[in-house]
Protein backbone atom coordinates (compact mmCIF):
# COMPACT_ATOMS: atom_id res chain seq x y z
CA UNK A 1 0.00 0.00 0.00
CA UNK A 2 1.38 3.39 -1.04
CA UNK A 3 0.39 4.98 2.30
CA UNK A 4 3.19 3.25 4.22
CA UNK A 5 5.73 4.14 1.55
CA UNK A 6 5.33 7.77 2.65
CA UNK A 7 6.46 7.04 6.21
CA UNK A 8 10.16 7.92 5.70
CA UNK A 9 9.16 11.10 3.86
CA UNK A 10 6.86 12.15 6.69
CA UNK A 11 9.62 11.60 9.25
CA UNK A 12 12.12 13.59 7.23
CA UNK A 13 9.67 16.42 6.75
CA UNK A 14 9.26 16.59 10.52
CA UNK A 15 13.04 16.89 10.81
CA UNK A 16 13.13 19.45 8.00
CA UNK A 17 12.32 22.48 10.12
CA UNK A 18 13.88 21.35 13.37
CA UNK A 19 13.15 24.43 15.41
CA UNK A 20 9.48 24.49 14.47
CA UNK A 21 9.06 20.75 14.90
CA UNK A 22 10.84 20.88 18.26
CA UNK A 23 8.50 23.61 19.48
CA UNK A 24 5.49 21.63 18.28
CA UNK A 25 6.76 18.42 19.84
CA UNK A 26 7.47 20.30 23.06
CA UNK A 27 3.90 21.66 23.07
CA UNK A 28 2.51 18.14 22.64
CA UNK A 29 4.89 16.68 25.21
CA UNK A 30 4.04 19.41 27.71
CA UNK A 31 0.36 18.70 27.07
CA UNK A 32 0.85 15.00 27.74
CA UNK A 33 2.98 15.72 30.80
CA UNK A 34 0.40 18.14 32.19
CA UNK A 35 -2.32 15.57 31.65
CA UNK A 36 -0.29 12.84 33.33
CA UNK A 37 0.64 15.00 36.30
CA UNK A 38 -2.86 16.36 36.81
CA UNK A 39 -4.44 12.95 36.26
CA UNK A 40 -1.79 11.28 38.40
CA UNK A 41 -2.36 13.79 41.17
CA UNK A 42 -6.09 13.13 41.11
CA UNK A 43 -5.50 9.38 41.04
CA UNK A 44 -3.15 9.68 44.00
CA UNK A 45 -5.72 11.73 45.88
CA UNK A 46 -8.41 9.13 45.16
CA UNK A 47 -6.10 6.34 46.23
CA UNK A 48 -5.09 8.04 49.48
CA UNK A 49 -8.64 9.02 50.27
CA UNK A 50 -9.86 5.51 49.51
CA UNK A 51 -7.18 3.78 51.56
CA UNK A 52 -7.61 6.37 54.32
CA UNK A 53 -11.32 5.73 54.73
CA UNK A 54 -10.89 1.97 54.34
CA UNK A 55 -8.15 1.80 56.95
CA UNK A 56 -9.76 4.20 59.40
CA UNK A 57 -13.48 3.45 59.28
CA UNK A 58 -14.87 1.34 56.56
CA UNK A 59 -12.67 -1.67 56.00
CA UNK A 60 -13.34 -3.28 52.63
CA UNK A 61 -16.61 -4.98 53.41
CA UNK A 62 -19.05 -4.55 56.28
CA UNK A 63 -21.64 -7.03 57.44
CA UNK A 64 -24.78 -5.96 59.26
CA UNK A 65 -27.94 -7.61 60.45
CA UNK A 66 -30.47 -7.61 57.61
CA UNK A 67 -32.43 -4.34 57.55
CA UNK A 68 -29.74 -2.30 59.31
CA UNK A 69 -28.94 -0.08 56.36
CA UNK A 70 -32.63 0.85 56.04
CA UNK A 71 -33.80 1.10 59.65
CA UNK A 72 -30.62 0.89 61.73
CA UNK A 73 -30.11 4.62 62.08
CA UNK A 74 -33.33 5.00 64.11
CA UNK A 75 -33.16 1.72 66.04
CA UNK A 76 -29.52 0.65 66.13
CA UNK A 77 -29.92 -1.90 68.94
CA UNK A 78 -32.72 -3.71 67.08
CA UNK A 79 -30.23 -4.79 64.44
CA UNK A 80 -27.43 -6.54 66.29
CA UNK A 81 -25.55 -9.64 65.20
CA UNK A 82 -25.78 -12.26 67.91
CA UNK A 83 -22.91 -14.70 68.44
CA UNK A 84 -20.56 -12.84 66.09
CA UNK A 85 -17.58 -15.10 66.79
CA UNK A 86 -19.11 -17.92 64.73
CA UNK A 87 -19.47 -15.67 61.67
CA UNK A 88 -16.01 -14.19 62.15
CA UNK A 89 -14.24 -17.54 62.07
CA UNK A 90 -16.14 -18.66 58.93
CA UNK A 91 -15.46 -15.38 57.08
CA UNK A 92 -11.82 -15.30 58.07
CA UNK A 93 -11.40 -18.67 56.39
CA UNK A 94 -12.39 -17.23 53.03
CA UNK A 95 -9.54 -16.57 50.61
CA UNK A 96 -8.11 -13.03 50.48
CA UNK A 97 -9.64 -12.09 53.84
CA UNK A 98 -6.99 -10.74 56.18
CA UNK A 99 -9.11 -10.25 59.26
CA UNK A 100 -12.59 -9.54 60.54
CA UNK A 101 -13.16 -7.15 63.40
CA UNK A 102 -16.31 -6.43 65.37
CA UNK A 103 -17.81 -3.06 66.16
CA UNK A 104 -20.68 -1.28 67.80
CA UNK A 105 -21.48 2.34 67.13
CA UNK A 106 -23.55 4.09 69.78
CA UNK A 107 -24.31 7.51 71.16
CA UNK A 108 -23.18 8.49 74.63
CA UNK A 109 -22.51 11.45 76.86
CA UNK A 110 -18.95 12.16 77.85
CA UNK A 111 -18.22 14.30 80.88
CA UNK A 112 -15.03 15.86 82.17
CA UNK A 113 -16.82 17.01 85.31
CA UNK A 114 -17.01 20.55 83.94
CA UNK A 115 -18.10 19.77 80.36
CA UNK A 116 -20.51 17.19 79.13
CA UNK A 117 -20.90 16.54 75.44
CA UNK A 118 -22.74 14.10 73.23
CA UNK A 119 -20.33 11.79 71.42
CA UNK A 120 -20.39 9.02 68.87
CA UNK A 121 -18.68 6.05 70.43
CA UNK A 122 -17.09 3.39 68.28
CA UNK A 123 -16.55 0.18 70.18
CA UNK A 124 -13.67 -1.74 68.64
CA UNK A 125 -11.39 -4.71 69.12
CA UNK A 126 -8.10 -2.85 69.69
CA UNK A 127 -5.69 -5.52 68.46
CA UNK A 128 -7.52 -6.23 65.22
CA UNK A 129 -8.42 -2.62 64.67
CA UNK A 130 -4.72 -1.70 64.96
CA UNK A 131 -4.03 -4.12 62.12
CA UNK A 132 -6.89 -2.63 60.10
CA UNK A 133 -5.42 0.87 60.33
CA UNK A 134 -2.09 -0.18 58.79
CA UNK A 135 -1.73 1.11 55.21
CA UNK A 136 0.79 -0.75 53.09
CA UNK A 137 2.34 0.13 49.73
CA UNK A 138 1.45 3.81 49.87
CA UNK A 139 4.21 6.38 49.99
CA UNK A 140 3.99 9.02 52.75
CA UNK A 141 1.09 7.22 54.44
CA UNK A 142 1.23 4.29 56.84
CA UNK A 143 -1.92 4.49 58.91
CA UNK A 144 -5.58 5.37 58.49
CA UNK A 145 -5.80 6.57 62.05
CA UNK A 146 -2.98 8.70 63.39
CA UNK A 147 -2.39 8.76 67.15
CA UNK A 148 -1.40 12.37 67.81
CA UNK A 149 -0.89 12.12 71.55
CA UNK A 150 -0.65 9.21 73.97
CA UNK A 151 -1.00 5.66 72.71
CA UNK A 152 -3.40 3.53 70.76
CA UNK A 153 -5.73 1.16 72.59
CA UNK A 154 -4.34 -2.34 73.11
CA UNK A 155 -5.81 -5.76 73.85
CA UNK A 156 -5.13 -5.07 77.51
CA UNK A 157 -6.97 -1.78 77.44
CA UNK A 158 -10.01 -1.74 79.65
CA UNK A 159 -11.89 1.36 80.71
CA UNK A 160 -9.60 3.38 78.42
CA UNK A 161 -10.67 5.43 75.44
CA UNK A 162 -9.31 7.39 72.50
CA UNK A 163 -10.63 10.87 71.73
CA UNK A 164 -10.88 12.50 68.33
CA UNK A 165 -8.64 15.55 68.17
CA UNK A 166 -11.50 18.02 67.61
CA UNK A 167 -13.42 16.55 70.53
CA UNK A 168 -10.39 16.62 72.83
CA UNK A 169 -9.89 20.27 71.96
CA UNK A 170 -13.51 21.19 72.53
CA UNK A 171 -13.73 19.61 76.00
CA UNK A 172 -10.12 20.47 76.81
CA UNK A 173 -9.22 16.86 77.61
CA UNK A 174 -5.68 15.50 77.64
CA UNK A 175 -4.09 12.09 77.76
CA UNK A 176 -4.47 10.61 81.24
CA UNK A 177 -7.62 12.58 82.08
CA UNK A 178 -10.36 10.71 83.88
CA UNK A 179 -13.78 11.08 82.18
CA UNK A 180 -17.22 9.63 82.69
CA UNK A 181 -19.07 7.94 79.85
CA UNK A 182 -22.82 7.64 80.20
CA UNK A 183 -25.23 5.84 77.89
CA UNK A 184 -28.34 3.71 77.65
CA UNK A 185 -27.90 -0.03 77.81
CA UNK A 186 -29.67 -1.99 75.11
CA UNK A 187 -32.37 -2.67 77.69
CA UNK A 188 -32.96 1.07 78.03
CA UNK A 189 -31.54 1.73 81.49
CA UNK A 190 -28.70 4.17 82.13
CA UNK A 191 -25.16 3.03 82.75
CA UNK A 192 -21.95 4.97 83.33
CA UNK A 193 -18.26 4.12 83.63
CA UNK A 194 -15.14 6.01 84.55
CA UNK A 195 -12.68 5.90 81.68
CA UNK A 196 -9.16 7.19 81.12
CA UNK A 197 -8.03 9.03 78.00
CA UNK A 198 -5.27 6.86 76.52
CA UNK A 199 -4.70 8.75 73.33
CA UNK A 200 -5.94 11.36 70.87
CA UNK A 201 -6.44 10.40 67.24
CA UNK A 202 -6.93 12.00 63.85
CA UNK A 203 -8.80 10.16 61.11
CA UNK A 204 -9.55 11.25 57.52
CA UNK A 205 -13.00 12.38 58.71
CA UNK A 206 -13.06 15.69 60.56
CA UNK A 207 -16.66 15.06 61.51
CA UNK A 208 -15.70 11.89 63.37
CA UNK A 209 -12.67 13.57 64.93
CA UNK A 210 -14.91 16.35 66.30
CA UNK A 211 -17.45 14.01 67.88
CA UNK A 212 -15.95 10.54 68.03
CA UNK A 213 -14.36 8.36 70.65
CA UNK A 214 -13.03 4.82 70.41
CA UNK A 215 -13.62 2.43 73.24
CA UNK A 216 -12.61 -1.25 73.64
CA UNK A 217 -15.46 -3.57 72.65
CA UNK A 218 -15.10 -5.48 75.89
CA UNK A 219 -15.72 -2.31 77.91
CA UNK A 220 -18.56 -1.25 75.64
CA UNK A 221 -20.20 -4.67 75.98
CA UNK A 222 -20.27 -4.19 79.72
CA UNK A 223 -21.53 -0.64 79.36
CA UNK A 224 -24.29 -1.63 76.94
CA UNK A 225 -24.86 -4.99 78.56
CA UNK A 226 -24.75 -7.09 75.40
CA UNK A 227 -22.47 -9.63 73.75
CA UNK A 228 -23.90 -8.85 70.34
CA UNK A 229 -22.24 -6.51 67.85
CA UNK A 230 -23.51 -4.15 65.23
CA UNK A 231 -21.12 -4.77 62.40
CA UNK A 232 -18.35 -7.03 61.24
CA UNK A 233 -15.67 -5.14 59.37
CA UNK A 234 -13.68 -7.20 56.89
CA UNK A 235 -10.15 -6.27 55.82
CA UNK A 236 -8.87 -7.81 52.60
CA UNK A 237 -5.40 -8.42 51.32
CA UNK A 238 -6.09 -6.06 48.39
CA UNK A 239 -8.68 -3.37 47.76
CA UNK A 240 -9.13 -4.51 44.15
CA UNK A 241 -10.54 -7.84 45.39
CA UNK A 242 -13.45 -6.17 47.20
CA UNK A 243 -16.19 -7.26 44.81
CA UNK A 244 -14.91 -10.83 44.57
CA UNK A 245 -14.78 -11.29 48.33
CA UNK A 246 -18.09 -9.55 48.85
CA UNK A 247 -19.65 -12.06 46.47
CA UNK A 248 -18.13 -15.00 48.32
CA UNK A 249 -19.31 -13.64 51.68
CA UNK A 250 -22.82 -13.27 50.27
CA UNK A 251 -22.66 -16.81 48.96
CA UNK A 252 -21.52 -18.06 52.37
CA UNK A 253 -24.25 -16.07 54.14
CA UNK A 254 -26.96 -17.45 51.92
CA UNK A 255 -25.73 -21.06 52.23
CA UNK A 256 -25.57 -20.68 56.04
CA UNK A 257 -28.89 -18.81 56.19
CA UNK A 258 -27.35 -15.86 58.00
CA UNK A 259 -29.74 -12.96 58.09
CA UNK A 260 -27.21 -10.36 57.15
CA UNK A 261 -26.53 -7.71 54.54
CA UNK A 262 -23.11 -7.36 53.03
CA UNK A 263 -21.97 -3.90 51.91
CA UNK A 264 -18.75 -3.09 50.12
CA UNK A 265 -16.81 0.11 50.85
CA UNK A 266 -17.93 2.02 47.72
CA UNK A 267 -21.54 1.76 48.90
CA UNK A 268 -20.58 3.18 52.28
CA UNK A 269 -18.25 5.92 51.02
CA UNK A 270 -20.72 8.48 49.78
CA UNK A 271 -18.39 11.43 50.34
CA UNK A 272 -15.55 9.70 48.53
CA UNK A 273 -17.84 8.93 45.58
CA UNK A 274 -18.90 12.54 45.31
CA UNK A 275 -15.33 13.82 45.49
CA UNK A 276 -14.26 11.38 42.77
CA UNK A 277 -17.15 12.41 40.53
CA UNK A 278 -16.31 16.10 41.00
CA UNK A 279 -12.57 15.64 40.40
CA UNK A 280 -13.19 13.50 37.35
CA UNK A 281 -15.35 16.21 35.84
CA UNK A 282 -12.62 18.77 36.57
CA UNK A 283 -10.07 16.47 34.98
CA UNK A 284 -12.19 16.12 31.84
CA UNK A 285 -12.35 19.91 31.48
CA UNK A 286 -8.60 20.15 32.01
CA UNK A 287 -7.98 17.43 29.42
CA UNK A 288 -10.17 19.29 26.95
CA UNK A 289 -8.21 22.53 27.43
CA UNK A 290 -4.89 20.71 27.01
CA UNK A 291 -6.18 18.94 23.89
CA UNK A 292 -7.23 22.30 22.47
CA UNK A 293 -3.74 23.73 22.99
CA UNK A 294 -2.22 20.71 21.24
CA UNK A 295 -4.71 21.03 18.38
CA UNK A 296 -3.91 24.72 17.85
CA UNK A 297 -0.18 24.10 17.99
CA UNK A 298 -0.27 21.35 15.36
CA UNK A 299 -2.78 23.20 13.23
CA UNK A 300 -0.40 26.15 13.08
CA UNK A 301 2.62 23.99 12.28
CA UNK A 302 0.84 22.12 9.50
CA UNK A 303 -0.52 25.28 7.95
CA UNK A 304 2.93 26.84 7.90
CA UNK A 305 4.43 23.68 6.43
CA UNK A 306 1.84 23.66 3.67
CA UNK A 307 2.37 27.31 2.80
CA UNK A 308 6.12 26.73 2.58
CA UNK A 309 5.78 23.56 0.56
CA UNK A 310 3.12 24.71 -1.91
CA UNK A 311 5.36 24.28 -4.97
CA UNK A 312 6.52 20.90 -3.73
CA UNK A 313 2.89 19.81 -3.40
CA UNK A 314 2.27 21.01 -6.96
CA UNK A 315 5.30 19.03 -8.17
CA UNK A 316 4.20 15.86 -6.38
CA UNK A 317 0.76 16.08 -7.95
CA UNK A 318 2.18 16.96 -11.40
CA UNK A 319 4.35 13.85 -11.48
CA UNK A 320 1.32 11.65 -10.88
CA UNK A 321 0.46 11.59 -7.19
CA UNK A 322 -3.24 11.69 -6.42
CA UNK A 323 -4.83 14.25 -4.11
CA UNK A 324 -5.45 11.45 -1.64
CA UNK A 325 -1.69 10.82 -1.53
CA UNK A 326 -0.98 14.43 -0.60
CA UNK A 327 -3.63 14.13 2.12
CA UNK A 328 -1.93 10.97 3.39
CA UNK A 329 1.52 12.56 3.46
CA UNK A 330 0.37 15.47 5.62
CA UNK A 331 -1.87 13.35 7.84
CA UNK A 332 1.07 11.03 8.46
CA UNK A 333 3.16 14.02 9.49
CA UNK A 334 0.48 15.06 11.97
CA UNK A 335 0.18 11.50 13.23
CA UNK A 336 3.93 11.17 13.74
CA UNK A 337 4.12 14.53 15.50
CA UNK A 338 1.44 13.21 17.86
CA UNK A 339 3.17 9.86 18.34
CA UNK A 340 6.59 11.42 18.97
CA UNK A 341 5.27 14.24 21.16
CA UNK A 342 3.08 11.78 23.04
CA UNK A 343 6.01 9.42 23.70
CA UNK A 344 8.18 12.31 24.87
CA UNK A 345 5.35 13.44 27.14
CA UNK A 346 4.98 9.96 28.63
CA UNK A 347 8.70 9.85 29.44
CA UNK A 348 8.77 13.38 30.91
CA UNK A 349 5.48 12.90 32.73
CA UNK A 350 6.52 9.64 34.33
CA UNK A 351 9.94 11.02 35.28
CA UNK A 352 8.52 14.16 36.81
CA UNK A 353 5.73 12.19 38.44
CA UNK A 354 8.28 9.89 40.05
CA UNK A 355 10.32 12.79 41.42
CA UNK A 356 7.22 14.51 42.80
CA UNK A 357 5.99 11.24 44.32
CA UNK A 358 9.27 10.56 46.06
CA UNK A 359 9.57 14.09 47.45
CA UNK A 360 5.84 14.33 48.18
CA UNK A 361 3.68 17.40 47.63
CA UNK A 362 2.68 18.96 50.99
CA UNK A 363 -1.09 19.34 51.08
CA UNK A 364 -3.54 21.00 53.47
CA UNK A 365 -6.18 18.79 55.08
CA UNK A 366 -8.55 17.44 52.39
CA UNK A 367 -12.24 18.42 52.34
CA UNK A 368 -13.81 16.82 55.40
CA UNK A 369 -10.44 15.89 56.86
CA UNK A 370 -8.25 17.37 59.56
CA UNK A 371 -4.77 16.07 58.82
CA UNK A 372 -2.16 17.62 56.55
CA UNK A 373 -0.78 15.09 54.12
CA UNK A 374 1.65 14.55 51.30
CA UNK A 375 0.35 13.88 47.85
CA UNK A 376 2.12 11.95 45.13
CA UNK A 377 1.49 11.26 41.44
CA UNK A 378 -0.18 7.96 40.73
CA UNK A 379 0.14 7.31 37.00
CA UNK A 380 -2.02 4.38 36.03
CA UNK A 381 -1.83 2.46 32.76
CA UNK A 382 -5.21 3.88 31.82
CA UNK A 383 -3.91 7.40 32.36
CA UNK A 384 -0.88 6.70 30.17
CA UNK A 385 -3.17 5.45 27.44
CA UNK A 386 -5.44 8.48 27.83
CA UNK A 387 -2.57 10.98 27.61
CA UNK A 388 -0.96 9.22 24.66
CA UNK A 389 -4.30 8.78 22.91
CA UNK A 390 -5.11 12.46 23.41
CA UNK A 391 -1.82 13.49 21.74
CA UNK A 392 -2.22 11.17 18.78
CA UNK A 393 -5.89 11.95 18.28
CA UNK A 394 -5.52 15.72 18.72
CA UNK A 395 -2.57 15.92 16.34
CA UNK A 396 -4.17 13.76 13.68
CA UNK A 397 -7.50 15.57 13.90
CA UNK A 398 -5.85 18.97 13.73
CA UNK A 399 -3.93 17.91 10.60
CA UNK A 400 -7.07 16.97 8.72
CA UNK A 401 -8.02 20.45 7.57
CA UNK A 402 -4.51 21.63 6.58
CA UNK A 403 -3.86 18.30 4.82
CA UNK A 404 -7.17 18.55 3.00
CA UNK A 405 -6.33 22.11 1.97
CA UNK A 406 -2.99 20.91 0.61
CA UNK A 407 -4.67 18.16 -1.37
CA UNK A 408 -7.08 20.65 -2.95
CA UNK A 409 -4.40 22.95 -4.35
CA UNK A 410 -4.64 23.70 -8.07
CA UNK A 411 -1.51 22.10 -9.54
CA UNK A 412 -0.65 24.87 -12.01
CA UNK A 413 -1.11 27.56 -9.32
CA UNK A 414 0.94 25.59 -6.81
CA UNK A 415 3.76 25.21 -9.35
CA UNK A 416 3.78 28.96 -9.95
CA UNK A 417 3.94 29.65 -6.19
CA UNK A 418 7.13 31.32 -5.07
Amino acid sequence: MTFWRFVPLAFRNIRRNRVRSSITLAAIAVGATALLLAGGFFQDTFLRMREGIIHSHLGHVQIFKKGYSQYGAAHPFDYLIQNPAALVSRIENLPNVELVTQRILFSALLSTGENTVAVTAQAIQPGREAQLTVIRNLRHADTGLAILHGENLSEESSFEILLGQGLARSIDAKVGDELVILTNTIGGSLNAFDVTVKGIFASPSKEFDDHGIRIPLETASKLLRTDAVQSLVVLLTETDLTETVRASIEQLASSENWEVEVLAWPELADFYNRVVALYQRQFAVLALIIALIVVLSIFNTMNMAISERTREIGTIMAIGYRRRDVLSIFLLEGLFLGLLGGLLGLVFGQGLGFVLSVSGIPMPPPPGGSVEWKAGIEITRQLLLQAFGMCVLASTLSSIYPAWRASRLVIADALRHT
Partner: protein
Amino acid sequence: MPLIEARSLSKIYMLGKTEVHALNAVNLTVEKGEFMAIAGPSGSGKTTLLNILGCIEKPTEGSVLFDGKNVAQLSGNQLADFRLNHIGFIFQTFNLIPVLTAIENVEFPLLKMPLSKRERRTRAQEALESVGLGGLAHRKPDELSGGQRQRVAIARALVGRPNIVLADEPTANLDHATGLAVLELMSDLNSRLGTVFVFSTHDPKVMSMARRVISLVDGKIVEETTVP
Protein backbone atom coordinates in the same frame (compact mmCIF):
# COMPACT_ATOMS: atom_id res chain seq x y z
CA MET B 1 -0.74 8.47 -35.37
CA PRO B 2 0.97 11.44 -33.67
CA LEU B 3 1.74 11.16 -29.96
CA ILE B 4 -0.14 14.35 -29.16
CA GLU B 5 -2.64 16.21 -31.20
CA ALA B 6 -3.81 19.50 -29.73
CA ARG B 7 -6.78 21.07 -31.47
CA SER B 8 -7.64 24.76 -31.25
CA LEU B 9 -6.54 25.17 -27.65
CA SER B 10 -7.64 28.32 -25.90
CA LYS B 11 -7.02 29.26 -22.31
CA ILE B 12 -8.57 32.24 -20.63
CA TYR B 13 -7.55 33.27 -17.10
CA MET B 14 -9.28 35.80 -14.96
CA LEU B 15 -6.83 38.31 -13.56
CA GLY B 16 -9.05 40.23 -11.18
CA LYS B 17 -11.89 41.27 -13.49
CA THR B 18 -9.77 41.19 -16.63
CA GLU B 19 -9.75 38.24 -19.00
CA VAL B 20 -6.29 37.17 -20.04
CA HIS B 21 -6.06 35.08 -23.19
CA ALA B 22 -3.05 32.92 -22.46
CA LEU B 23 -3.62 30.70 -25.48
CA ASN B 24 -5.60 31.47 -28.57
CA ALA B 25 -6.72 28.68 -30.90
CA VAL B 26 -3.43 26.79 -30.86
CA ASN B 27 -3.14 23.70 -33.06
CA LEU B 28 -0.15 21.52 -32.45
CA THR B 29 0.94 18.02 -33.30
CA VAL B 30 3.79 16.25 -31.56
CA GLU B 31 5.15 13.20 -33.32
CA LYS B 32 6.80 10.23 -31.65
CA GLY B 33 10.55 10.65 -31.21
CA GLU B 34 10.48 14.44 -31.52
CA PHE B 35 12.87 16.87 -29.81
CA MET B 36 11.00 20.09 -29.93
CA ALA B 37 11.22 23.60 -28.49
CA ILE B 38 8.47 26.06 -27.75
CA ALA B 39 9.95 29.52 -28.02
CA GLY B 40 8.59 32.88 -27.10
CA PRO B 41 8.96 35.81 -24.75
CA SER B 42 7.66 35.79 -21.16
CA GLY B 43 3.89 35.77 -21.03
CA SER B 44 3.56 34.31 -24.50
CA GLY B 45 1.77 31.21 -23.20
CA LYS B 46 4.62 28.66 -23.23
CA THR B 47 4.00 27.41 -19.68
CA THR B 48 0.25 27.27 -20.20
CA LEU B 49 0.70 25.22 -23.38
CA LEU B 50 3.07 22.82 -21.61
CA ASN B 51 0.67 22.51 -18.65
CA ILE B 52 -2.20 21.65 -20.97
CA LEU B 53 -0.10 19.16 -22.94
CA GLY B 54 1.01 17.71 -19.58
CA CYS B 55 -2.61 17.27 -18.40
CA ILE B 56 -2.14 19.48 -15.32
CA GLU B 57 -4.36 22.20 -16.64
CA LYS B 58 -7.50 22.03 -18.76
CA PRO B 59 -8.01 24.24 -21.81
CA THR B 60 -10.95 26.62 -21.79
CA GLU B 61 -11.64 25.42 -25.30
CA GLY B 62 -10.18 22.76 -27.57
CA SER B 63 -8.99 19.27 -26.90
CA VAL B 64 -5.83 17.22 -26.45
CA LEU B 65 -5.61 13.77 -27.95
CA PHE B 66 -2.90 11.58 -26.50
CA ASP B 67 -2.26 8.61 -28.79
CA GLY B 68 -5.68 9.35 -30.23
CA LYS B 69 -7.38 9.40 -26.81
CA ASN B 70 -9.10 12.54 -25.56
CA VAL B 71 -7.73 13.25 -22.08
CA ALA B 72 -10.62 15.59 -21.26
CA GLN B 73 -12.69 12.51 -20.48
CA LEU B 74 -10.39 11.40 -17.66
CA SER B 75 -11.20 12.03 -13.98
CA GLY B 76 -8.74 13.69 -11.60
CA ASN B 77 -7.38 10.37 -10.38
CA GLN B 78 -7.19 8.96 -13.89
CA LEU B 79 -5.29 12.05 -15.02
CA ALA B 80 -2.86 11.61 -12.10
CA ASP B 81 -2.29 7.98 -13.12
CA PHE B 82 -1.95 9.05 -16.74
CA ARG B 83 0.73 11.61 -15.88
CA LEU B 84 2.51 9.07 -13.71
CA ASN B 85 2.72 6.50 -16.48
CA HIS B 86 3.06 8.60 -19.62
CA ILE B 87 4.50 12.04 -18.87
CA GLY B 88 7.71 13.24 -17.25
CA PHE B 89 8.17 16.80 -16.00
CA ILE B 90 11.23 19.00 -15.70
CA PHE B 91 10.87 22.41 -14.07
CA GLN B 92 12.80 25.63 -14.30
CA THR B 93 13.49 25.57 -10.55
CA PHE B 94 14.24 21.81 -10.52
CA ASN B 95 11.56 21.20 -7.85
CA LEU B 96 13.35 18.36 -6.11
CA ILE B 97 12.12 17.33 -2.68
CA PRO B 98 14.76 18.81 -0.39
CA VAL B 99 14.52 16.17 2.35
CA LEU B 100 15.18 13.31 -0.07
CA THR B 101 18.55 12.29 -1.51
CA ALA B 102 19.17 12.30 -5.26
CA ILE B 103 18.30 8.63 -5.65
CA GLU B 104 15.22 8.98 -3.42
CA ASN B 105 14.02 11.91 -5.53
CA VAL B 106 14.41 9.82 -8.65
CA GLU B 107 12.68 6.90 -6.98
CA PHE B 108 9.79 9.06 -5.78
CA PRO B 109 7.45 8.58 -8.79
CA LEU B 110 8.09 4.82 -8.63
CA LEU B 111 6.59 4.67 -5.11
CA LYS B 112 3.23 4.94 -6.85
CA MET B 113 3.96 2.00 -9.13
CA PRO B 114 3.54 -1.68 -8.30
CA LEU B 115 7.26 -2.35 -8.04
CA SER B 116 9.33 -4.03 -5.33
CA LYS B 117 11.75 -1.95 -3.31
CA ARG B 118 14.68 -3.59 -5.09
CA GLU B 119 13.21 -2.88 -8.55
CA ARG B 120 12.58 0.72 -7.58
CA ARG B 121 16.13 1.18 -6.37
CA THR B 122 17.64 -0.48 -9.44
CA ARG B 123 15.62 1.64 -11.82
CA ALA B 124 16.39 4.83 -9.91
CA GLN B 125 20.10 4.01 -9.90
CA GLU B 126 20.04 3.28 -13.65
CA ALA B 127 18.24 6.56 -14.31
CA LEU B 128 20.81 8.46 -12.25
CA GLU B 129 23.63 6.76 -14.11
CA SER B 130 22.04 7.65 -17.43
CA VAL B 131 22.36 11.34 -16.48
CA GLY B 132 25.91 10.84 -15.27
CA LEU B 133 25.20 11.14 -11.53
CA GLY B 134 25.58 7.51 -10.45
CA GLY B 135 28.20 8.54 -7.91
CA LEU B 136 26.13 11.26 -6.24
CA ALA B 137 23.10 9.14 -5.44
CA HIS B 138 23.12 9.86 -1.72
CA ARG B 139 23.56 13.61 -1.85
CA LYS B 140 20.69 15.86 -0.89
CA PRO B 141 19.65 18.53 -3.43
CA ASP B 142 21.33 21.29 -1.44
CA GLU B 143 24.63 19.41 -1.76
CA LEU B 144 24.42 19.46 -5.56
CA SER B 145 25.13 22.21 -8.11
CA GLY B 146 22.32 23.67 -10.22
CA GLY B 147 23.31 21.57 -13.23
CA GLN B 148 23.45 18.42 -11.11
CA ARG B 149 20.04 19.15 -9.64
CA GLN B 150 18.55 19.54 -13.09
CA ARG B 151 20.11 16.21 -14.09
CA VAL B 152 18.48 14.58 -11.06
CA ALA B 153 15.20 16.13 -12.19
CA ILE B 154 15.75 14.68 -15.69
CA ALA B 155 16.40 11.26 -14.16
CA ARG B 156 13.20 11.61 -12.12
CA ALA B 157 11.26 12.57 -15.26
CA LEU B 158 12.60 9.54 -17.13
CA VAL B 159 12.50 6.87 -14.43
CA GLY B 160 8.84 6.02 -15.04
CA ARG B 161 9.67 5.43 -18.74
CA PRO B 162 7.24 8.05 -20.04
CA ASN B 163 6.33 8.63 -23.69
CA ILE B 164 7.06 12.32 -23.35
CA VAL B 165 9.04 14.66 -21.12
CA LEU B 166 7.84 18.24 -20.82
CA ALA B 167 10.43 20.73 -19.66
CA ASP B 168 9.45 24.28 -18.76
CA GLU B 169 12.50 26.51 -19.27
CA PRO B 170 14.86 23.80 -18.02
CA THR B 171 17.95 25.95 -18.54
CA ALA B 172 16.67 29.29 -17.25
CA ASN B 173 18.22 28.88 -13.81
CA LEU B 174 21.53 27.55 -15.09
CA ASP B 175 24.59 29.30 -16.47
CA HIS B 176 24.97 29.14 -20.22
CA ALA B 177 27.46 26.28 -20.42
CA THR B 178 25.60 24.15 -17.89
CA GLY B 179 22.32 24.87 -19.67
CA LEU B 180 23.73 23.69 -22.96
CA ALA B 181 25.16 20.56 -21.30
CA VAL B 182 21.72 19.78 -19.86
CA LEU B 183 20.17 20.25 -23.30
CA GLU B 184 22.80 17.99 -24.85
CA LEU B 185 21.97 15.36 -22.29
CA MET B 186 18.26 15.65 -23.11
CA SER B 187 19.01 15.44 -26.79
CA ASP B 188 21.17 12.39 -26.23
CA LEU B 189 18.47 10.67 -24.17
CA ASN B 190 15.95 11.49 -26.89
CA SER B 191 18.16 9.78 -29.46
CA ARG B 192 18.97 6.80 -27.23
CA LEU B 193 15.60 6.12 -25.66
CA GLY B 194 13.28 7.62 -28.23
CA THR B 195 11.50 9.60 -25.50
CA VAL B 196 9.84 12.73 -26.86
CA PHE B 197 11.13 15.97 -25.33
CA VAL B 198 9.20 19.21 -25.55
CA PHE B 199 10.83 22.15 -23.81
CA SER B 200 10.15 25.83 -23.62
CA THR B 201 12.89 28.43 -23.81
CA HIS B 202 13.65 31.97 -24.86
CA ASP B 203 17.37 31.35 -25.26
CA PRO B 204 18.29 31.28 -29.01
CA LYS B 205 21.24 28.95 -28.45
CA VAL B 206 19.06 26.43 -26.63
CA MET B 207 16.43 26.81 -29.36
CA SER B 208 19.01 26.00 -31.98
CA MET B 209 19.46 22.53 -30.50
CA ALA B 210 15.84 21.59 -31.13
CA ARG B 211 14.87 19.77 -34.28
CA ARG B 212 11.60 21.68 -34.43
CA VAL B 213 10.81 25.09 -32.93
CA ILE B 214 7.33 26.50 -32.40
CA SER B 215 7.27 30.23 -31.72
CA LEU B 216 4.48 31.60 -29.58
CA VAL B 217 3.52 35.24 -29.29
CA ASP B 218 0.49 36.38 -27.28
CA GLY B 219 -0.83 32.84 -27.10
CA LYS B 220 -0.64 32.18 -30.84
CA ILE B 221 1.78 30.13 -32.89
CA VAL B 222 3.45 32.62 -35.19
CA GLU B 223 6.20 30.51 -36.64
CA GLU B 224 7.27 26.92 -36.94
CA THR B 225 10.78 25.96 -37.98
CA THR B 226 12.00 22.45 -38.66
CA VAL B 227 15.65 21.55 -38.86
CA PRO B 228 16.06 19.04 -41.64
